[in-house]
């Protein structure tokens, strides 16, 4: 139900509205019906020889105009809400109008949505219309963080075009990331490592992992003690925890020693918000297909 005034205020509105409409009708009609009457120019003082105040009614077109407006308001109040809690013959409401338009909007796109549901990711990926739509969804909802070209940005938000999936690149995993979001939880390790020397060693070791594991590296023993649980013995990462691969060339927060050090000192709490309430299943599937197509093309 639309919000409507209660009985007292409903009556209040109706009485005042109807009374003022009747009053206005009386005012206008009585002026025009009596316009040929006696008191148009009498009894008024005369200024400057011939200036006289009078009561000449406004022109006739004005009379018809105001009459038409009164008729319009009566008709309007019969059809639409306005007269207290009377809903009007059309039972119109703002929310109802939205529901109606939403229904016709949904009906318009239902065949397309069915097509999305029944298509494979590959089929969607090669469907130009579907991909254009997905690019639009990406631009509206994802590009603020991942960049309009989906290559990540600000040294904070991951590229979605490099074929590297921190949380797993299977369609179901990507959909899960979009639908429920992801919360990475890497804590700071400085105090556990015990000091600046160890920190620098681990940071250098982590950076060197891209070129193969150097078993003699002084940072390795700290890596094996603290980092291994999430990032794995060879730095392969763990998509279940969102722990990134460390033995490739992709660096989420930058490939300089400084940013690796910052990561180890402060930890990283990368957060992907959940879009389950913003996007519907078809939109999420389209986005996933778009991302998969993008990554296989590159």
């Amino acid at each position, binding site marked *: 139900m639309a919000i409507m005034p209660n009985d007292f205020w409903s009556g209040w509105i109706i009485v005042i509205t109807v009374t003022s409409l009747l009053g206005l009708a009386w005012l206008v009609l009585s002026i025009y019906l009596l316009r040929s009457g006696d008191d148009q120019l009498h009894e008024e003082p005369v200024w400057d020889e011939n200036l006289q105040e009078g009561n000449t009614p406004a022109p006739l077109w004005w009379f018809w105009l105001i009459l038409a407006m009164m008729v319009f308001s009566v008709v309007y109040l019969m059809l639409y809400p306005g007269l207290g809690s009377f809903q009007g013959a059309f039972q119109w409401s703002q929310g109802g109008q939205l529901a109606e338009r939403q229904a016709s909007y949904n009906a318009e796109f239902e065949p397309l949505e069915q097509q999305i549901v029944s298509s494979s990711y590959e089929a969607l990926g090669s469907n130009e219309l579907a991909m254009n739509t997905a690019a639009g969804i990406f631009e509206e909802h994802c590009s603020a963080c991942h960049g309009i070209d989906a290559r990540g940005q600000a040294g904070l938000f991951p590229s979605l075009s490099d074929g590297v999936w921190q949380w797993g690149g299977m369609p179901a995993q990507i959909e899960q990331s979009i639908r429920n979001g992801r919360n990475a939880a890497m804590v700071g390790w400085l105090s556990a490592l015990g000091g600046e020397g160890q920190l620098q060693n681990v940071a250098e070791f982590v950076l060197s992992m891209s070129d193969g594991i150097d078993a003699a590296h002084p940072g390795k023993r700290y890596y094996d003690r603290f980092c291994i649980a999430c990032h794995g013995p060879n730095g392969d990462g763990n998509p279940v925890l969102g722990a990134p691969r460390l033995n490739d060339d992709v660096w989420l927060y930058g490939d300089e020693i400084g940013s690796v050090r910052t990561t180890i000192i402060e930890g990283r709490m990368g957060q992907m*918000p959940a879009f389950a309430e913003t996007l519907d299943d078809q939109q999420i599937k389209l986005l996933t297909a778009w991302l998969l197509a993008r990554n296989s093309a590159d």
Partner: protein
Amino acid sequence: MNALKLHRILEQNTGLLIFGILFISSIGGLVQILPSLNDETLSTPTMNTRVYDAVELTGRDIYIREGCHVCHSQQIRPLVAEVERYGPYSRSGEFVYDRPFLWGSKRTGPDLHRIGGKYSDQWHETHLLNPRAVVPESIMPAYPWLSERPASAAGDIQRKMQVLQSMGHPYSPEDINNAEAALQGLTEMEALIRYLQMLGTSFDASQADAPMEGM
């Protein structure tokens, strides 16, 4: 009586004329405004709508101070295009603890009513420090000083909460006593982000019964 005689009486009696003008021009207010003031459904919180806590309230004041509302509205209209883009349209009951409300009517930037939870805290921080870092085509100004100023510098939080309490916002004595402690160690940036992240989150679409509810 005929209208011309009434006219003559009013015209020749200033006091009556003034009264007549006031009476006629008050009719619109009597019909439109007075019933709304007494309409409880307009002052009843929608679902999970709650008062702003000390940090959110401070963030909201920073939002007002920096003029965010000049370019960003907080009102999603019941139109398909807006609902598709921003989420469920705004309900009147969601704003009962907004004094003043920040609906706005000018969108230089996007509407922010359902911004809560859409981006990560980290994104908001990066974006407020330099909007171009995450939205290259953005024309929004940067607000770097927010991360340098303590949230407690934004004003006397306890006094603010007491004033709101006197207007019927249900703050408990503990809420007010703990307000300053809650702001300790936070920057204005963090307070503003806390406010942004709770915007529009009190509405639960699954609990909205009929689509006609609200507005």
